[in-house]
C-alpha cells in the first residue's frame, strides 16, 4: 500500500469527513426531536394520532433507508416538481428513518415511568406537557441514553447511504480519490478508519453507560 495517497489527498478526506459529521449532527438533532414527538404522541393514547404514529413507524422501519432516500430525492421531485437539495433530502430521509427507531427507544423509557408520577403531577395542577418535560422525561434518562447513543452510532454509519443521491461526504470523497489515483485498498481503508474514529468514542460511551445502568 502506498500511504502517500492519504497525505497527498488529506484535504479531500477531511472535507468528506466534515460533510459526514455535519449531516450526522443535523440528523441526530432532527431525528431525536422527531422520535421524541412521535413517542409523546404514541404514549398519549389520543386515538387517531396514536394510530397515525404507529403507521409511520411501521412504514419507515419496514422499508430500506436507501429506497426512502431515493424516493424523497428523485421520486418526490418527479411527482411534485418541487426540488429539494441533496442535503435536505438526505437529512429528511435520515430523520424519518432514524426517528422511527428513536421513537421506540423513548417510548420504552416513558412507559417504564410509573403511572403514579403522572397522577401526582396532575393533582398538583401540572399540565400534560409540563409533566412530560419536567417529570417524566428526566426519569427516562437511565433507560433511554444507552440505546439512544447506540442508535446514533448506526445513524452516523447510515449517512454513507446519502452517496446514492450525490451528497459529497466521506465515502464519495474516498471514491473521488480512487477515480483520480486508483488504489481502492488504501482509500477505502482510510474511509473506514475515519468512520471508526468518529464512532469508537460513542461506542465506549454506550458501554460505560450500560455498565452504570446495571450498577444503579
Amino acid at each position: 500500500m502506498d500511504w502517500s495517497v492519504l497525505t497527498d489527498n488529506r484535504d479531500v478526506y477531511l472535507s468528506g469527513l466534515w460533510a459526514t459529521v455535519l449531516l450526522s449532527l443535523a440528523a441526530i438533532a432532527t431525528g431525536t426531536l422527531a422520535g421524541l414527538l412521535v413517542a409523546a404522541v404514541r404514549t398519549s393514547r389520543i386515538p387517531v394520532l396514536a394510530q397515525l404514529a404507529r403507521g409511520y413507524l411501521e412504514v419507515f422501519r419496514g422499508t430500506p433507508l436507501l429506497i426512502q432516500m431515493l424516493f424523497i430525492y428523485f421520486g418526490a421531485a418527479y411527482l411534485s416538481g418541487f426540488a429539494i437539495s441533496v442535503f435536505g433530502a438526505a437529512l429528511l430521509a435520515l430523520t424519518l428513518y432514524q426517528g422511527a427507531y428513536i421513537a421506540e427507544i423513548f417510548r420504552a423509557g416513558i412507559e417504564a415511568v410509573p403511572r403514579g408520577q403522572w397522577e401526582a403531577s396532575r393533582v398538583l395542577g401540572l399540565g400534560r406537557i409540563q409533566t412530560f418535560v419536567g417529570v417524566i422525561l428526566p426519569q427516562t434518562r437511565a433507560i433511554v441514553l444507552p440505546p439512544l447513543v447506540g442508535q446514533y452510532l448506526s445513524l452516523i454509519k447510515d449517512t454513507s447511504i446519502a452517496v446514492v443521491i450525490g451528497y459529497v461526504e466521506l465515502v464519495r470523497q474516498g471514491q473521488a480519490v480512487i477515480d483520480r489515483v486508483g488504489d481502492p485498498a488504501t482509500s477505502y481503508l482510510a474511509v473506514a478508519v475515519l468512520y471508526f474514529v468518529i464512532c469508537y468514542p460513542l461506542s465506549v460511551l454506550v458501554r460505560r453507560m450500560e455498565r452504570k445502568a446495571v450498577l444503579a
Partner: protein
Amino acid sequence: MTTTTTDRKTASVSLVGVHKRFGALEVLKGVDIDVAPGEVVVLIGASGSGKSTLLRIMCDLERADSGEVWVNDVPLHDRRRAPEIFGHVGMVFQQFNLFPHKTALGNVTLALRKVRKLERGEAEERGRAVLARVGLADKADAYPAQLSGGQQQRVAIARALAMDPAIMFFDEPTSALDPELVGEVTGVMRSLAEDGMTMVVVTHEMRFARDTADRVVFMDGGVVLEQGPPEQVFGSPAEARTQQFLHRVLDT
C-alpha cells in the same frame, strides 16, 4: 331539592348517587357522602369495598360513571369544569409518588413554580416552611432515595400542603411503611387535623381513625353501609358486616 343545593354550597365534598364500574366489576353502587369544611372523614372497609376508588373520584383521578361529584364547589361530573380542581386539593398516595430526580425541596417547589408561577426565592421560602411543618427542615436537599419511607411520605404531604389545598385526600398513606414508621406520618396528619384542615382519609390504621376522625365511614360492597362518630362506629356498630370487619382488623 333545595336543601341539597344549599348543602352543596357549604360542603367541601358532596357526592350524590355515584356509580363506577371497571369492566364487569361494579365497584361503587350508588354512594352519597358529604364532607363539611374542617371535617376529618376516615373511610374504612375491606379491600375491594370501593373506598380507594371513591377517594380517587374525589380528586378526579377516576371518573364516576353517573352521579354528581362536587369538590370545593367544582362539579367534577362536568368534564369541562373538572380540571379546575387540580392545584386546589392535595393527594397523598400509598406509594408516595415523589419525583425521584428532584430533592425534597425540588419536589415541594415544582408546582409552586410551574403552576403558581412563584419566583424561585419565594417558592423555596414556602417550600422550606412546609418541610419544617412536617419536621423535615434539615432534609431539604436530600433525594427521595436517601430518605426513609416515613420521611418520603412526609415530603409528599409537604408537597401537597405547599399548594395551600382546600382539602387533603390520603389514600392508604401508611400502608407501604414499616410499622415503626407509621407513627411519624399519622402524627403529621393528626396535627393537620388539629389545625382545621378538611381531610378525607382511606386507611387501615384504626387507632388513627378512632383518635382523629370526626366521622368514620364504613364501606362494604360498593356502598356506604354505616357511618358516624368513631366512638359510635367502633363502640356499638349497628351493622353485622361492620362488626365482622372491626373484629377482624382489631383482633390482629
